[in-house]
């Protein structure tokens, strides 16, 4: 932690608001001593000013009177002055009056200034109070430290989350008061102050409450900067324990659902296969025909369950995309391998462009991307009549790779194009011997490609074929 910075000037234990950091300090408040001194000073200033003015005025009058006194009535006037001492008395009383007047003026002027200062201070205090109330009422935990890591604020929510009261925590090193777990992410305060940039930790930090309970938190730590100097750090955090528990529950539910649904389907599949292979005796043509229908239904159920689970994960956001360099030619080869049986069955040839081997690797989740192209290829085969073909190729374009899956199939009518990527949208297939899809494959493909920062689109001519394009950033 950088200790070279001067500590925050404010925010002592008795006067806790972090707002004080920038707004108001005790040195600015007027004390009675200062007030009295200022009265005296100002009174003297005004007194001497008035004295000067009276002196100048008297001198002017005296100068004006010189010719009168000496040329016309000098003897009488001089006699009057000497006899009654009136002029001296008048001058003295005038001086006293001026002093009194000056003092009075000085005081009232100062009072006005003091009153103004007081109202400014009241306004500032009110603003400070408002800011503090706002900070305290924020539904997220907020705490702030000075540049030495001493706590200068702990709002109400933070008190609840940590089990520590602000009163006891203030001005203590925050590490003594707040305890974090999970190596590598707990130094967010130090990192924010060192790098002078906000540090975000999403749900990976663990806060240990004063009663020993652990809570998962998301954290945003921002340095407090003043004239480009780090004055401290303000941290906003959110308790994500419930959110994480919920996410875990959802993932577990999908896991269990996937297992529970797949177990009976596996049974159906294997037992129908056993029957079809004559393990329970030879079947007559009619029995074979019926069994084929059962197999078709089971296959449809397999696709439905798989797609539903995929889409559930996509929609609830628990689907993790693990980005690594991936060879597109490998992905397409794997997708083609998975559908080899189907392509052979419907006599559709699948061609992977030779140029694909030399395309650069993309950053992608291989398993998910393979699933996307398996979906696209599956669709292409499903809507392509016997002896048709599906061609997969790729080309570079402006920092991205465009992969196309092109078939010689029945095509998509223009009016159906818009809803192609919507959930549960299925396009009527004139090829009656093909199984039905779930209507989720393209929706899933779009979601996955967008999670990779890419785009998917389609062009089609009825009766000629369809091409799906996938653009992935390089």
């Amino acid at each position: 932690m950088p200790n070279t910075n001067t500590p925050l000037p404010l925010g002592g234990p008795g006067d806790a608001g972090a707002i004080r950091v920038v707004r108001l300090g005790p040195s600015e408040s007027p004390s009675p001593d200062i007030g009295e001194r200022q009265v005296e000073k100002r009174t003297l200033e005004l007194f001497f000013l008035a004295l000067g003015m009276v002196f100048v005025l008297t001198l002017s009058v005296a100068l004006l009177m010189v010719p009168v006194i000496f040329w016309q009535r000098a003897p009488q006037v001089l006699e009057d002055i000497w006899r009654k001492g009136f002029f001296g008395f008048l001058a003295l009383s005038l001086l006293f009056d001026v002093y009194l007047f000056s003092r009075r003026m000085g005081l009232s002027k100062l009072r006005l200034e003091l009153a103004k200062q007081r109202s400014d201070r009241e306004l500032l205090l009110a603003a400070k109070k408002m800011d503090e109330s706002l900070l305290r009422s924020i539904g997220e935990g907020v705490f702030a430290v000075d540049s030495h890591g001493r706590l200068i604020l702990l709002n109400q929510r933070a008190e609840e989350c940590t089990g520590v009261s602000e009163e006891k925590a203030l001005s203590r090193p925050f590490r003594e008061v707040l305890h974090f777990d999970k190596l590598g992410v707990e130094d967010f305060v130090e990192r924010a102050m060192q790098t002078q940039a906000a540090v975000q930790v999403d749900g990976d930090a663990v806060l240990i409450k004063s009663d020993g309970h652990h809570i998962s938190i998301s954290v945003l730590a921002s340095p407090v900067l003043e004239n480009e100097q780090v004055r401290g750090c303000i941290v906003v955090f959110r308790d994500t324990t419930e959110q994480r528990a919920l996410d875990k529950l959802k993932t577990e539910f999908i896991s269990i659902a996937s297992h529970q649904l797949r177990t009976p389907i596996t049974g159906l599949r294997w037992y129908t296969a056993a029957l079809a292979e004559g393990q329970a005796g030879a079947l007559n043509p009619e029995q074979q025909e019926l069994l084929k229908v059962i197999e078709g239904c089971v296959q449809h159920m397999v696709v439905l369950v798989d797609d539903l689970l995929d889409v559930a994960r996509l929609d609830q956001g628990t689907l993790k995309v693990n980005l690594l360099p991936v060879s597109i030619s490998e992905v397409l080869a794997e997708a083609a391998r998975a559908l080899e049986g189907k392509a052979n069955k419907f006599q559709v040839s699948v061609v992977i462009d030779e140029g694909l081997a030399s395309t650069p690797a993309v950053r992608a989740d291989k398993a998910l991307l393979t699933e996307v192209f398996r979906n696209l290829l599956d669709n292409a085969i499903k809507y392509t009549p016997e002896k048709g073909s599906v061609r997969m190729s790729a080309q570079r374009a402006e920092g991205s790779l465009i992969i196309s899956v092109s078939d010689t199939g029945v095509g998509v009518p223009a009016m159906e194009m818009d809803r192609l990527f919507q959930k549960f949208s299925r396009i009527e297939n004139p090829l009656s011997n093909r199984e039905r899809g779930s209507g989720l494959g393209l929706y899933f493909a779009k979601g996955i490609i967008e999670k990779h920062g890419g785009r998917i689109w389609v062009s089609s001519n009825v009766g000629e074929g369809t091409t799906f394009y996938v653009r992935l950033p390089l």
Partner: protein
Amino acid sequence: MGVPPLPQRVYKILLVEDEEFLRRVFKSRMVAQGYDVTDVESAESALAWLGQSKPDLIVLDLYLPKMSGFDFLRHVKADPARHDIPVLILSGLGQEADIRKGLALGAQEYVVKTQVEPRELMDKIRHMLAEGDKAT
């Protein structure tokens, strides 16, 4: 006449699957291929059996009562006398996280139950046993 042909080796397979109807159909398929199959319904029974015998392949379900398939796999891979037995996971769990975890724990193959035809599975098993032979 010539030398009598060597008796063909009978591979031993340990099948761990808690669903009785699946155990039956998997086993009958494997037996039909000429394998010597021991089927158990739990990871605990499998570990007990492994204490006395060493199969050429373990076919393992993951979602088992009490000890999970993952934990069973950890036990087997930690046992110096058993860690080299190839393991094929045959599970209903199909999320990438499960697949990655299974393979990371040392399984050679991960097959999602519904995504494989019986014949394909048999091919995989034959291939794995052949690979195991090569390794030894």
